[in-house]
């Protein structure tokens, strides 16, 4: 036959795969997906009022995000050049994305006033999401583990509360409290329907708070759970063959999680801009 070497190598590969499938899968190791989201106390601090000030893994990750943003901003702000180097160019791209893509394309008035908040929330959520994709030694016994600060409903609820409070603050400051609340019912509607629509609008304002926080939280939790399952597929199936076959799939899922981290930060920022812009010019 032509090319006997190809046949031999092909048979060796198939034999290797069959051997992988047959070999018993090593020690039985228990694997639990939810173990990543344990929030045990790292440093116990006293309770002030209703708030327990102890330091947990989430608090340390929030500090890490703040430190990373601070260091990057200081590095770029110390030596601004007219012809930017690579690092300054990257930071400028991020700034322009926040200024033109998020605030400029959605808000009509109040762009300059609200850009610090929306740009800040965009960069903060982006940094928290991206740091969640880097393994840091916070696992049990200081093993490397993945965790995102935004995979915690408390953190995302606080961020959504900022947007909620700022929305109503912006609307009330611009239009006056009574006119702002009255504008929730459309002017050209019959009397009973007007009150019903007003009631529905009140409910939808509260629902925006919940949806903004739960969207970010659930995306991050689901992403990390899928990552944990894919990375530990060999343990779950107790088979070497499955572990080898799913290395590529693990990389693909990781890339998708990177994409989701960017998209969720962008969506949080742009929805905040839509809500604040909607409260500023109410009859568009």
């Amino acid at each position, binding site marked *: 036959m032509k090319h006997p070497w190809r046949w031999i190598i092909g048979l060796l590969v198939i034999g290797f795969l069959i051997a992988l499938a047959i070999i018993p899968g090593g020690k039985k190791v228990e694997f639990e997906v*939810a173990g990543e989201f344990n929030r045990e106390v790292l440093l116990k601090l006293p309770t002030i009022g209703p708030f327990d000030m102890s330091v947990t893994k989430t608090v340390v990750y929030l500090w890490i995000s703040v430190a990373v943003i601070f260091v990057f901003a200081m590095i770029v702000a110390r030596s601004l050049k007219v012809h930017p180097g690579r690092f300054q160019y990257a930071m400028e791209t991020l700034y322009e994305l926040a200024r033109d*893509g998020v605030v400029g*394309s959605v808000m009509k008035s109040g762009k300059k006033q609200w850009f610090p908040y929306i740009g800040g929330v965009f960069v903060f959520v982006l940094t928290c999401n991206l740091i969640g994709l880097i393994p840091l030694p916070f696992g049990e016994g200081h093993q490397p583990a993945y965790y995102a600060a935004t995979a915690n409903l408390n953190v995302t609820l606080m961020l959504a509360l900022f947007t909620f409070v700022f929305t109503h603050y912006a609307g009330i400051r611009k239009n006056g409290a009574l006119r702002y609340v009255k504008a929730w019912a459309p002017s050209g509607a019959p009397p009973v329907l007007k009150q019903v629509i007003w009631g529905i609008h009140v409910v939808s304002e509260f629902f925006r708070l919940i*949806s903004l926080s*739960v*969207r970010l*939280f*659930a*995306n991050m*939790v*689901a992403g990390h759970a899928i990552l944990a399952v894919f990375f530990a597929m060999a343990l779950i199936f107790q088979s070497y063959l499955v572990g080898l076959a799913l290395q590529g799939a693990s990389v693909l899922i990781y890339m998708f999680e990177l994409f989701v981290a960017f*998209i*969720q930060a*962008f*969506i949080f920022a*742009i*929805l905040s801009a*839509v809500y604040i812009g909607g409260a500023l010019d109410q009859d568009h």
Partner: protein
Amino acid sequence: MDAAAAKELGKLLGAGLSMGLGAVGPGIGLGIMIGKALESIARQPEVAGDVRTNMFIGIGVTEAVALYAFVVALILIFVA
């Protein structure tokens, strides 16, 4: 079957049904929306940037509905 086992069965069944059926609607909605965005980009390539930005907003809002079902499934399994 005693009460504790029945409750466990109910929890797991409810979680599975919640996530499974709850992903049907957003899946269809996302497909329709992204298809329409592709059609409008094909018709008028100059507005591709604007269309893409608004499509991402729409994707975020629609996928949030599927994630509500996921959160309900999580609550069923881990809390109560």
